[in-house]
């Protein structure tokens, strides 16, 4: 499509403050790191000059063989591939990383800050869905909904003694990380008559729940432990053998955070040995790989990282990514800035 570059006035001599018209925005190179969401891809295609990293085997090196690195001014990443140091270094004109996620663990934030690269994510729009999934996983594990569904499907209802499930209402729930998602989970669990306690970097003054400054104490005190914090250097493997043992043989672990929050090897052995009562997992250390030993365990429910995967929320996240990009390239404030 033909377009004329907009004439620069005295005010706009700073090359970073170009007046961008809608027409010119379509020439802005945006790199999408993974397939993520068809609607998002279509919107990026419509509004910008879209490049797809997976067309080059998801390799930056391969991408640079056939493309100029300086054409990329924005990167849209997700929980699989974000923007690490290598990627940032490969695109000298990178101005903004708009993540199709709320989690930032796949983005080298320090590098972005160093280079003045903006970062935006998708908070709030996905809070409800992730919290809903956490409760769904608890019920799936405790009430054995998934295992029972399987029994019925394979025709065992007439024959098998399913044994008893465990009641959810009134149980003690411990939340690791009382941010937006942790708070939303707490509100839902409260309606089931659960007692809520939490572990966080600091006590939240407006939270009416019991605070533990030590995660072992939290795990000892609750029956259902939910990981809802961000993945940082401090929280990597925060759920280790000690925490799992404190949670105990009647305890269940729910992980809707990141796989790396949990020492997966320890989790597997605890489940196999009966030192942990059960687990509901949406995330794993090396997705999409799931430890084989977990497959088919009746006290484990496994989800393929679907925390925010509803039609409604995926579209809302996509709209937020597009809005942030448009805002940036129109010199307007980002809607959901991180940096």
């Amino acid at each position: 499509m033909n377009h004329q570059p907009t004439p620069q006035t005295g005010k706009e001599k700073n090359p970073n403050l170009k007046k961008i018209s809608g027409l010119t925005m379509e020439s802005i190179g945006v790199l999408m790191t993974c397939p993520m969401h068809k609607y998002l891809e279509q919107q990026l295609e419509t509004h910008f000059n879209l490049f797809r990293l997976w067309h080059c085997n998801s390799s930056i090196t391969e991408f640079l063989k056939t493309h100029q690195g300086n054409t990329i001014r924005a990167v849209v990443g997700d929980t699989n591939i974000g923007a690490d140091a290598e990627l940032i270094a490969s695109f000298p004109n990178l101005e903004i990383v708009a993540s199709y996620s709320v989690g930032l663990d796949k983005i080298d934030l320090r590098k972005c800050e160093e280079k003045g690269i903006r970062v935006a994510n998708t908070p709030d729009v996905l809070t409800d869905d992730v919290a809903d999934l956490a409760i769904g996983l608890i019920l799936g594990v405790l009430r054995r909904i998934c295992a029972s569904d399987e029994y019925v499907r394979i025709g065992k209802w007439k024959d098998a003694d399913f044994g008893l499930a465990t009641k959810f209402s009134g149980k003690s729930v411990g939340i690791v990380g009382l941010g937006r998602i942790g708070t939303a989970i707490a509100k839902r669990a409260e309606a089931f008559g659960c007692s809520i306690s939490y572990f966080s970097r600091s006590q939240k003054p407006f939270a009416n729940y019991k605070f533990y400054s030590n995660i072992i104490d939290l795990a000892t005190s609750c029956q259902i432990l939910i990981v809802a914090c961000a993945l940082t250097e401090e929280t990597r493997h925060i759920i280790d053998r000690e925490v799992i043992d404190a949670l105990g043989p009647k305890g269940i672990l729910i992980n809707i955070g990141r796989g790396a929050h949990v020492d997966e090897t320890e989790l597997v052995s605890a489940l196999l040995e009966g030192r942990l009562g059960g687990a509901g997992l949406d995330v794993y250390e090396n997705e999409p790989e799931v430890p084989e030993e977990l497959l088919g365990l009746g006290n484990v429910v496994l989800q393929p990282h679907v925390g925010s995967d509803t039609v409604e929320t995926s579209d809302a996240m996509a709209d937020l990514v597009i809005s942030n990009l448009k805002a940036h390239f129109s010199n307007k404030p980002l809607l959901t800035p991180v940096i």
Partner: protein
Amino acid sequence: MDCNGYRQENHDQNLFPKPKVLVLEPPPVFIYHEEKLSQKFHFLKAWDSPLPLEQFLTTHAHSVQAILSHGSCPVTTNTIRLLPSLGLIVTTSAGLDQIDLQECRRRGVSVAYAGNLFSADVADIAVGLLIDALRKISAGNRYVTQGLWANNGDFSLGSKLGGRKVGIVGLGSIGLEVGKRLEPFGCNILYCSRNKKSSVSYPYYSNVCELAANCEVLMICCELNDQTRHVINKEVLLALGKKGLIINVGRGAIIDEQEMVRCLMQGEIAGAGLDVFENEPHVPSELISLDNVVLSPHRAVHTEETLMALVDLVIGNLEAFFSNKPLLSPVLLDE
């Protein structure tokens, strides 16, 4: 085991014989807690006998005063008539459709049931089935365990629960617990019930069809009786619509099952979560093939904790009866 109670050895019991209680079929609480129950009562086990029921009753249970029953064990007019001394039926269920209440009323037989003991558990599973059906939790679990995530990539998208209008059919103890739980999920609660409840602020609909037309989820939480049998019919399902889901934790026969299956197969409704069926343990084979349906083998109340509480309630009711004290959880039979 000898089911002729009179020959059971029990020296201590010669002086203070344990009250006799007839059991037609063993309820789950009996299966898990027989020892605790048998410490207090002497059970005449009809199902264990080679004799047909009528003969067993006339031969061994003629003087029995109490029956221990459960949800899918019918206590018929005939059975009641064969027991001239019957004064109490204790059922371990919250539902009463399996007992001839009219005959009980006529004969002055008291009935004790589970009351609100199960309400939390039933509400929990109703919400669990709803989240599962919308977010495809069981289907996603299958996707992972069958190795499809690694091979086929991302699983398909589910649907958001927040913001949905949820219509509760029957706002009794269970319905109220369901409403309470769904509120923080951002659901808008509507309901249909025999009578409007002045204590709740949820919008009320006097008929199920109108409720269905105004919501995207129907939660069946009512009892099965003449008015509610097949009340969820084709008209209601079509009113619910193509994005609608139905969750049933009441009784299978509240829904016209054949019609529901047809609607699911043809995409007239979006999905279902079912703990009960018209002809348990039979589940229509068409449902087995669907990924947008979650199937539960009538286990809404089968938790360890609730079963323990139920044993205590059963014992409490039987003890009260045999010592002429008020029942703990009587059914009000006057209408």
